C-alpha cells in the first residue's frame, strides 16, 4: 500500500501536525519507502498467533482506593500542575476559545 499526498495530508491533520506543501511532498516518498519496507511482514504466516500483549509475563497490579496515596500520584498540587502552562489564569489552563 502506498500513500499519496492527500493521504499524507490527512494523516498529518489527524496527528495535528501542520505541514506545508513542500513538507508534504517530501514526506510522501519517505513514508512510502518505510511502508513498503514494513509490508514484508505480510509474508509471515501468523494465522495461529496471538498478538503480543505483555512483553514479560506479568499480571496487571491494582492499586488500593486511597486518596493522595503518595504525593507523586495524588492531587492537591495545583501550583505544580500549572507551573509550566503557557497560559494559566485563575487556577485554570487557558486555551484558544472553543466553540462547541
Amino acid at each position, binding site marked *: *500500500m502506498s*500513500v499519496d499526498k492527500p*493521504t*499524507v495530508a490527512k*494523516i*498529518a*491533520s*489527524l*496527528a*495535528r*501536525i*501542520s*505541514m506545508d506543501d513542500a513538507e508534504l511532498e517530501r*514526506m510522501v516518498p*519517505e*513514508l512510502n*519507502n*518505510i*511502508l513498503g*519496507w*514494513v*509490508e*514484508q*511482514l*505480510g*509474508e*509471515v504466516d*501468523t494465522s495461529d*498467533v*496471538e*498478538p*503480543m*500483549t505483555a*512483553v*514479560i509475563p*506479568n499480571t*496487571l*497490579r491494582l*492499586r488500593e482506593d486511597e486518596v493522595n496515596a503518595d504525593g*507523586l*500520584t495524588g492531587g492537591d*498540587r495545583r501550583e*505544580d*500542575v*500549572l*507551573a*509550566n*502552562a*503557557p*497560559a494559566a489564569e485563575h487556577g485554570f*489552563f487557558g*486555551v*484558544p*476559545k*472553543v*466553540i462547541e
Partner: protein
Amino acid sequence: MMSELTDLGVKAIRDGVASGDFSAREVAEAFNANVAAAGALNAFIVATPEKALAAADAVDEARSAGKQLGPMAGVPIGMKDLFCTDGVQTTAASHILEGFVPRYESTVSANLWKAGAGMLGKLNLDQFAMGSSNETSYFGNVVSPWRTAGGGNAAMSPGGSSGGSSAAVSARLCPAATGTDTGGSIRQPAAFAGITGVKPTYGRCSRWGVVAFASSLDQAGPMARNVEDCAIMLEAMAGFDPKDATSLDMPVPNWAEMLDADLTGKRVGIPREYRMDGMDAEILDNWERGKTMLRDAGAEIVDISLPHTKYALPAYYIIAPAEASSNLARYDGVRFGLREMPSDKDGERAGLQDMYAATRSEGFGDEVKRRILIGTYVLSAGFYDAYYNQAQKVRALVAQDFEKAWGSCDVILAPTTPTASFPLGSLDDDPLTMYLNDVFAVPASLAGLPAMSVPAGMNSQGLPLGLQLVAKPFDEQGLMNAGLAIEQRAGFTARPDRWW
C-alpha cells in the same frame, strides 16, 4: 591529580571516597571541569555543576559524620535528558519541551540520588529518543570523541539515541551515565563509543518519570566503562515501582558482588540469522573473536536459529511509531512546553485545533514527525489489522524464537551493530538505512530481554566495535558474567584522543 580522578570509574570513585583517598567534592570538581571544557562534543544540553557539588558535599559530610554511604556515594553521573528531573529543565532534546521544568523526579534518577550519586547535567540525545546517530536533537548533534585513525577530522556519530551518554562516558566527562533503550538506544551508542551499556529485562527499571517513546519497549539502563560499574549502577537504578504498572515486582540481586567470568557449563548461542548478506567483514571477525573469548572462559558455543530475525526490525518500525504517535499526543501546547498560535486565516479566528497543529509542527523535528505520521497511519481505520496487529503477532513469534533458543543456550552472542560509527551527516537522506543500524539490537527489545554491548576491539579505522549479549528474562547476572568474560579477554583499553 584532577585528570586522574576523571579516569576513574564508578567503583573506583565510590571506594576512593569511602576510604578517604579523595573527597567527593574533588571528584565532582574534576568532572565539572571536564564537562565545562567539552563544549565541542555538545554532549550536555544543560550542565548542573552545582547539583554535582551539592551531592558531593552531602556525601563528604555523611562520611565525616560516620554514616553509612550509598552504593553510588560520591559518583557524579550524567543524566540522559529523557529523565524528568525536579527543578531542572527536561527537554527530550526537543523544541516542544524547551524550558519545561518538571516539579517531579523520575524514579530511576531518584533511586540514583538516594544511592549517593550526583548530577553533572542533562545529556543530549536524539529527539524523543528517536534516532541512531544523535542527529535529531533540537540542540544540535552530539559529536563523538572518537575520530578515525589517520588524521581524518570528520565528526563521527556517537550513536543514538543515548549519544550524549556514550560520548560523555567515553570522553571522561562522567564515569557513568543513564541511558534508555527502546530499540538499541543504549547498546548501539555504547558500541560506537567503546563503552559498556546494559539494557535490563523490561520492567527492571521503572519508566515513571521517563519521557515515553514506545512504552512496551522503553527500558532504562546504565552506561559506563566496564561491566562492574554497570552492575553497580544498575543495582541502584532498578527496583519495583508501584507507580509503573509494568514494573517487575522482584528483588534486585547483588549483581556486582556476584559477577563471575567463569562460564564453565554455560552454552553460548550463535544465531545463524544474524549473519546477513554483505556484512562488514570486520564485524564478522569481531564476532568470531567473541566466540573464542567465551569458549576460553569455559563456555560451549552452540549454533542456534532465530528464524524471525529478519522481521523484527520492520515489526519494530510499526510498533514503536504507533506507540509514539499516541505517547506524544500530550505535547499540545496546553499544559507545558511550547505553544504556537497561528495567525487568523481568511478572517477566521485560529482555534484550539489550529494551535495544536502549529505547536506540534514547530515543536517536533523531522524524524519525530515522520514517526508520528507512520504511527498514526498504521493505527488508522482500516489499517490496524494489517499493520499493528500483524506486527504484534510477529513480535510474539520473535519472542517465541528466543524462548525456543533458551532450550539450547544460556546466553546469545551477536554483533551489536552492523557497522562501526559513521560520520555525522552521512546517512542524512535515508531514514531506512539509518533504521538498519538497529537490526541486531531490536529483536531483544521486542522480546523484553536483558541485553548489553561490551567493547571488544577496534576496526581498521581505529573505531571501537562492540559485541552484544542477550540473556533470558531476569538473568542480568548471566548476561553480565558473559560480558565480564569478554571484557577480561578483549583487553579494550583504547580511548579517544582529546581533541576537544
